[in-house]
């Protein structure tokens, strides 16, 4: 096994500036979209008093969930002492921070009053799971920062395992918190389930690793660094396990909801009569986002990088669809003011709410992805996050 050597990505190249420009532009468009929505008010969006959280939240929660999942690779290396993941631990940490930053930017810019960020950072209601999430997010940044420091500063290497353990525990709590934002909402049938917290954890494993794998393959391809099959195969096999685990939770979630009569309505809505939500569930989330990737990863195409990349892209699209169905489908389904009765009012009681995402909402969400990629791209050029080579001789602990 060759010695592991980390090296910054060469920043002063045309290719690097192109990526920087592209990601910067996407981020800028996102910020401008947010400015447009804030300046006019949310009436320019598809959101309403019925569908309260829209497309920005789908992106924001995807990025936040993926952030904790991206850290998994580092955790496997430090906490579970799998040395073959060690070369990837630094990238894992910085991607986690970048993803979380991207998600939080979207969440912040969609607030009705983003200018009151200082209020959110100074006035806490500790009964609120949202408050706990604010603390969990900022804490995550700090802990992963320290974790990266122990990895990258040789005298402190001996602290890596401890820092890694702390980060691992923190990320589990963080995703539990994110899932609980929905799980704690007794009012809405779609969310009233303790399963949401563990389901969000396993979703984070899957989304985070798909994003990690894409970024890894992309950055090695465009910097012409060697990325061996050993690493890619390990990661893609792991990814397949996570996709299957998400599928398991989705099945359990819907089957248990079908079993209880008071949750049957929302489940039937999502599974059979929900229009766009039913389509997104079956076609995008289940077929394209789960079954096709499983076939691509475990089938004969498993050794083909393009197919692994395609599977990762599909998993991310499936994940966005899954969150769209949970977040927006869950709100579109009417709340039961009088269970078992037919209700109607001027405030859209008893009817499925109409929601069509507006362009600015979508651009803001995409802007979050831009911020994530921009930060990660700057980071790998500024500091030694990426190994100079991840050829099989370097990566495979049993290799020659």
């Amino acid at each position, binding site marked *: 096994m060759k010695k592991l050597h980390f090296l910054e990505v060469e920043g002063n190249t045309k290719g690097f500036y192109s990526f920087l420009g592209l990601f910067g532009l996407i981020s800028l468009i996102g910020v401008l979209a947010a400015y447009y929505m804030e300046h006019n008010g949310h009436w320019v969006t598809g959101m309403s*008093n019925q569908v309260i*959280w829209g497309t920005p939240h789908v992106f924001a929660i995807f990025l936040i969930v993926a952030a904790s999942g991206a850290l998994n690779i580092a955790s496997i290396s430090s906490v579970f002492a799998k040395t073959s993941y060690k070369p990837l631990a630094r990238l894992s940490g910085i991607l986690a921070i970048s993803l979380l930053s991207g998600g939080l930017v979207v969440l912040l810019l969609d607030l009705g009053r983003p200018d009151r960020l200082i*209020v959110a950072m100074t006035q*806490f209601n500790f009964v*609120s799971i949202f408050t706990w999430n604010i603390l969990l997010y900022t804490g995550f940044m700090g802990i992963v920062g320290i974790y990266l420091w122990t990895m990258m500063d040789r005298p402190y290497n001996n602290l890596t395992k401890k820092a890694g353990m702390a980060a691992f525990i923190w990320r589990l709590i963080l995703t539990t918190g994110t899932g609980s934002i929905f799980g704690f909402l007794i009012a809405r049938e779609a969310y009233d389930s303790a399963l949401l917290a563990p389901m969000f954890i396993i979703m984070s494993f899957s989304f985070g690793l798909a994003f990690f794998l894409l970024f890894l393959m992309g950055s090695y391809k465009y910097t012409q660094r060697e990325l061996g099959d050993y690493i890619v195969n390990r990661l893609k096999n792991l990814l397949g396990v996570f996709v299957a685990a998400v599928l398991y939770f989705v099945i359990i979630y819907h089957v248990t909801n079908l079993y209880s009569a008071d949750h049957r309505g929302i489940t039937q809505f999502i599974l059979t009569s929900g229009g766009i939500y039913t389509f997104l569930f079956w076609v995008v989330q289940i077929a394209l986002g789960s079954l096709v990737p499983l076939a691509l990863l475990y089938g004969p195409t498993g050794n083909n990088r393009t197919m692994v990349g395609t599977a990762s892209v599909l998993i991310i699209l499936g994940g966005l669809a899954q969150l769209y169905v949970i977040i927006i489908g869950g709100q579109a389904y009417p709340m039961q*003011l009088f269970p078992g*009765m*037919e209700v109607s009012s001027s405030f859209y009681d008893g009817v499925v709410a109409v929601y069509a995402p507006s362009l600015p909402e979508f651009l803001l969400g995409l802007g979050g992805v831009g911020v994530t990629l921009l930060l990660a791209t700057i980071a790998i050029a500024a500091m030694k996050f990426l190994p100079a080579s991840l050829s099989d001789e370097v990566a495979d602990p049993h290799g020659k």
Partner: protein
Amino acid sequence: MTINNENKNNGETASSAESSINLEASRRNFIFGSVAAAGLTVAPGMMLYQTANARSLSDFSLKDGASSKVRWGMLVNTTKEVDWNKCVEACNKEHGLGNEKDSRDDQKTQYIRVVDVKNKGTGYSMSLPVMCQHCENAPCVDVCPTGASMKRADGIVLVDRHRCIGCRYCMMACPYKARSFVHEVLTDQTENTPRGKGCVESCNMCVSRIDNGQEPACVEASEGAIIFGDLNDPETPIAKILAKHGGKQIRADLKLNPGVHYQGI
């Protein structure tokens, strides 16, 4: 000015008809309170002293702030033939609602709405006004990250418009869909209801009216079908009727203990 708390002296029983008698008593009690308050007030919201034993609205004016001895509540009698839209209109007028220019209908603020309910099996139908239910265990208060969504000591659930960051988590949490988000820039707000773009708002039980010794606007417009009063004081008409005839809370199964009770649902 005669000080006469008829409400305490009458021994009326509370049937549907009696509840209106009690309501009259409540009104007199309330009017007395207002007048007394006016007489004793040296400046708006400041009182010199209070009457000794009458627990009327004016006793709970701004002097001492909201008191946890009081729990303001409402009792809506849905069996009465009332045009509930009058309550909606009164509410809109009181709070200056309906002044959105750009918002779609599903984006406009409604503090109170008329809900039509029909039992598919029996065909029985009814209408009732639904507003913020001023829950004891209010989910909106629990989930608000900044504490902007709050419950006053006297049970009124409010939004502090200076603290609200517009995250809308309270709207996600409310089982009654009682809250609205201001989707556009507003102008010409009423003095007592400072509404603004990017904040969440809802029925505040006309808190400024209560603090001035008046009843909420919807109660006033309800032709006696909504009774307002202190649920904690067994001598108030609302407490008496609830004690004798009971009332129902919407989604009582959630155990949020709303301050708004209904009869006939």
